[in-house]
């Protein structure tokens, strides 16, 4: 609430809980995510940050024995509300994963437009236009424009990850979730993705999970610190990293544990 001064939050999370079978992975988390900003989720591994972000597009429930409860309001609409189809939600909230996962049997072009094709967009001119726009947004266009019909899995790891970003952007989602998108990449590819994130936040709201505190400090506007499934602290990144309110946050940031 404190920081929602300029703009209304695009995502409001209210007492969100998530489980894997018996284990309680996310405990009663509430936070607001402001539009056109980068929100970083940090915390030691196993603290529930990935589970948390996977609840935001209802992907968590696809895992057998997983469950979730609470409210997530996307521009005021509860995505866990009755009669809400998760499929429609996932189109509005895109996601990029830890390991790049382009569709193996598809070309670069087909990968980018796969979201549109699913939606029934058939007209070639639209597909071509959107593919170019998304690839440019993902800063991949110049590298692949001559081989759009080569298989997507033939690219390097960093390129594959940007291809996945382009694929997510093609359906023009207002929110983009990134689950440790650089953990499988080398430092140069990581730098490119970080640059891209800063560029993209002009158009998209980004929620990024990272185990790398420097990365969070470099690219995010706001930071949430998770510990054992609980939200410990949430605020402006500069504040969280310099004058944390909680002792646990300070201990984590200064490397005392985790």
């Amino acid at each position, binding site marked *: 609430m404190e920081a929602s001064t300029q703009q209304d939050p695009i995502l409001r999370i209210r007492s969100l809980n998530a489980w894997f079978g018996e284990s309680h992975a996310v405990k009663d988390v509430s936070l607001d995510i402001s539009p056109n900003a980068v929100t970083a989720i940090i915390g030691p591994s196993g603290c529930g940050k990935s589970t948390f972000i996977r609840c935001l*597009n209802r*992907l968590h429930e*696809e895992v*057998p024995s997983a469950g979730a409860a609470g409210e997530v309001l996307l521009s005021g609409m509860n995505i866990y509300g009755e009669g809400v189809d998760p*499929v*429609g*939600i*996932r*189109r*509005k909230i*895109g*996601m990029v*994963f830890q*390991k790049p*996962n*382009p*569709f*193996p*049997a*598809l070309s670069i072009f087909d990968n980018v437009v*796969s*979201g549109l094709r*699913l*939606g029934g967009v058939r007209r070639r001119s639209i597909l071509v236009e959107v593919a170019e726009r998304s690839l440019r947004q993902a800063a991949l266009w110049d590298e692949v424009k001559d081989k759009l019909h080569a298989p997507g899995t033939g690219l390097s790891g960093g390129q594959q990850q940007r291809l*996945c970003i382009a*694929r*997510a952007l093609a*359906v023009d989602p207002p929110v983009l979730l990134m689950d440790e998108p650089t953990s499988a990449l080398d430092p140069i590819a990581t730098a490119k993705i970080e640059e891209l994130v800063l560029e993209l936040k002009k158009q998209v709201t980004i929620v990024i999970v990272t185990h790398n505190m420097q990365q969070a400090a470099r690219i995010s506007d706001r930071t949430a610190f998770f510990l054992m499934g609980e939200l410990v602290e949430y605020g402006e990144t500069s504040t969280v990293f310099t004058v944390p309110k909680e002792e646990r946050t300070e201990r984590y940031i200064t490397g005392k544990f985790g």
Partner: protein
Amino acid sequence: MKAEALENSAAMQGPWSISLPTVKRFKIKAGRGDLHWGDRLFFWLMSTAAVGICGLLGLILAFLVYSALPTITQFGWAFLVEKSWDPVNGEFGALAFVFGTVVSSLLALLVATPLSVGIALFLNELAPRRVAKGIGFLIEMLAAIPSVVYGLWGIFVLAPWLRTTVQPFLGDWFGFLPLFQGPPYGVGLMTSGIILAIMVIPTISSLSKEVFRAIPRANREAALALGATRWETMRLSVLKSSKTGIFGAVILGLGRALGETMAVTMVIGNRNDISSSLFAPAQTMASIIANEYAEATTSLHLSALAEVGLALFAVTFLINGLARLLIWRMKGRA
């Protein structure tokens, strides 16, 4: 294994290593080089059994060729393209049986492939774990039922039902197609095809399930996160990347269908003829052997049947070799 590793590291040092005094290298390999007499005897026993399987396969081939030699020399390749089969006058051509085998097996695949892939998708992608386990078990039981029991069921349940219900219906509505012309006998190509389909479903579906299971979760999540429905996820992330695997599964199913004997023998009607209608009785390579071998009297007749068996052996060899090759290639890619 240790010695091999040492050898490798020595080879890697290769050109830039200073010359060391040559040490006699021991090559330690499980089996042949074992020093203990018990180990040698044991290894010898086990490897005899193993190599014996290759020998057995060679022996099967040799005896089939030997048994079939009279007809091979007398008829040559004409045996496979000639239609007349007349044991009394000593004329032998296997075309009708090849035709019956091919048509009934293809019909079986046509029915079984979509069903099996559907089953594999349902079990792997949709059904809750318990349901999948239960249905998977029942489908395995489908494979455990002996062939002769399928034949019995085919004669007394399936064939009458097809004769009185399905075939008249098809004849009335699609009788303009040569496939559905002629009197509905019940027994015939169609019945064999359906029985074979039932019998190969467990093979194709369990192999397809393995293929689907090998696809990582991340691929499915990519589609889900893009706003794909479950079905679209299956199409995009599962089916598209498992075409080769499914093809391999179907090929192995084909191998099974081609050689299946008893159930087919009991419901195909046993007529040595080629007809364009699926209602017509026919004969397959396996069924002609089952029907005539024990009662064949002339040596040429026996030899002709053995040559049919040889052809069957050759075809299953080729088909399974191909399927294995596909599986190897898939593994190489992964």
